[in-house]
């Protein structure tokens, strides 16, 4: 009889409560399933009962890592519905905060991946770098996690000290290219754990509808920032790293390169940022109608649908998080692998089940 090994809902390998049932023959995985829903907070239901300003603060709490992505996507949906133009300075500030958030999310993920293969020294190195960008975000917004930067029509706060942001970003780019990437790509034990493990083929990535770094590591050059630029991304130069291998190692490399690209984007945005107003109206009038909005979060495409009846409260807000799209790809990845690989493979999606549960 094949034993079912249950990981979770509370397990050292999982950042949040969810559950992975792994069917094993010895150490080999023959089947796996993921159960989510432990973090359901009825956020979409609550959104239909609160006004737009409160809703933006509400959707900040969908995710504990990429809070800015959600407020940005919702703000953009409201702006499209109400026909509000965002001041140019606000567009650049939004890009800076979004990319800083991507930096901290990717560094957090790299740290956790190292922790899952038992490499605590590298985990501390990643989190030490992440602390730098967290300090920058706290200096800009006043909080380490929930930045409360976006409002319909602009941002709540200006970047008071662009020099400090530039210095921190340059330090991170330097440490990433000189310390982190060499270790992650050449260390024998890291390669032994990551290379060839948890392969998601290009065909599978298309069939399962993978998004974000997971898709890009399987050879799909897919990035909303490049294909449908929003805010100031059409005025900034950056590359979309793509790898063909589709294994955990490719996902490590794609995210490591994205850290460097984000640093490049922030440097350009700070240098190009024009002076001018950055806030919009306090209370925009939202007419009746419905709208879709999508942006590229650290984990992939974030999709919002907002329907309005013309009052100050939306009639429906629907969120589709990147993890919802990436979650099913975990199964083809773990089949045939060993049990020891399961924590790393499921983490290589950079899953955020709290977002998915909402």
């Amino acid at each position: 009889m094949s034993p079912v090994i249950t990981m979770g809902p509370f397990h050292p390998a999982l950042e949040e409560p969810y559950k992975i049932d792994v069917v094993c023959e010895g150490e080999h995985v023959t089947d796996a399933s993921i159960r989510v829903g432990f973090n359901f907070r009825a956020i979409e239901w609550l959104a239909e009962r609160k006004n737009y300003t409160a809703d933006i603060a509400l959707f900040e709490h969908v995710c504990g890592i990429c809070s800015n992505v959600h407020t940005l996507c919702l703000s953009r949906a409201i702006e499209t519905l109400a026909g509000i133009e965002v001041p140019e300075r606000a567009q650049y500030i939004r890009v800076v905060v979004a990319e800083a958030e991507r930096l901290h999310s990717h560094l957090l993920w790299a740290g956790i991946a190292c922790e899952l293969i038992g490499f605590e020294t590298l985990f501390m190195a990643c989190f030490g770098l992440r602390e730098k960008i967290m300090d920058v975000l706290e200096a800009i917004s006043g909080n380490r996690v929930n930045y409360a930067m976006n409002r319909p029509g602009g941002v709540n706060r200006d970047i008071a000290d662009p020099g400090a942001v530039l210095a921190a970003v340059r330090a991170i780019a330097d440490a990433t290219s000189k310390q982190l990437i060499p270790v992650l790509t050449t260390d024998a034990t890291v390669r032994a754990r990551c290379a060839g493990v948890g392969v998601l083929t290009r065909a599978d990535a298309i069939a399962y509808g993978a998004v974000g770094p997971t898709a890009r590591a399987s050879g799909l050059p897919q990035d909303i920032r490049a294909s449908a630029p929003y805010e100031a991304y059409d005025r900034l130069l950056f590359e979309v790293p793509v790898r063909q291998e589709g294994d955990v190692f490719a996902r490590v490399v794609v995210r490591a390169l994205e850290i460097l690209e984000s640093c490049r984007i922030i440097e350009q945005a700070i240098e190009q940022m024009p002076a001018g107003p950055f806030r919009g109206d306090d209370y925009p009038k939202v007419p009746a109608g419905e709208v879709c909005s999508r942006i590229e979060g650290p984990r992939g495409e974030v999709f919002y649908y907002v329907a309005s009846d013309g009052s100050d409260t939306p009639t429906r807000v629907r969120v589709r998080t990147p993890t919802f799209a990436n979650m099913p790809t975990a199964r083809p990845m773990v089949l045939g692998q060993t049990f020891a690989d399961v924590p790393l493979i499921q983490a290589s999606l950079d899953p955020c089940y709290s977002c998915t549960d909402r």
Partner: protein
Amino acid sequence: MTVVRGLISLLVFPGALFALPAGWFMMWLQRKINARAQGRIGPPFFQPFFDFVKLLAKEPVVRPRLQGFLMTVLPLAAVASTLGAIALLPVFPKAGGFSGDLVLLVSLIEVGPLCAVLGGFVSRSLYGGIGASREAVLTLAYNVPFLIALFALVASAGSFSLAGVALAAAWPVRVLALIALVACIPVKLHLNPFSAASAEQEIYAGSTTEYDGPRLALWELAHALEWVALTGLVASLAFPVADAAWPVRVVVFVAVSVALVVVLSFAAASTARLKLAQTARWFLLCGSGIALSALVVAFVRL
């Protein structure tokens, strides 16, 4: 006289009175070095001792009588056998008696992992079972180079006594064999890169997952004693100082043991954890290769 000496080596040095604080010190040193390598402050000096006392003070979970009995006896057996192995270490060569009998020493050292395997299965936890089976596979894997290396030393020295080996083994054989022996230590101590048996991100604490309170404290004790026994085994083989006075021997023994802890800690801090199959393959190919070359050198020189 032999009985008194035996009791002293079991209870005083290198036995309980020395080995307990030394084990806690080595555990602290490993954690401290690991912390410093990662840029952390690390635990206070008495932390392993505090942990032990805290676990002892906890009320044990009520278990079925047989299971509770086994879960107490197995860690006790591990503690007792490891303590016995330490007592056999030939810090004072030519001590006589069983002191330094290699066969007895190796079998006593092996009792600890065996108890851990049994203890994992007895605890009836799924993760304990996986940890126990991993422990069993690894024990088989590392014992190949471990035993071959010891056998090479024995062949080179022509003696089954540790003291004899320490004094007589040829240096080329000894260096190769010691490399193979040192490589086996991380498996027993659950250190990176060979810590698959207690991979917390996969199977919590492995075979000791279900243990609690005083029973876990016993495992911790056995673990601390294993540090002393294994580093001591290598130390007594690496630098025999037969002609010196006994304080010099003690100092050399302790210094080499601590140096070994430092080396192992840095090695653990700079590696990721290998998977079970990778670890087993490493020991069966690389580890055994080194040990076999020691054996070949030993026979060629004969």
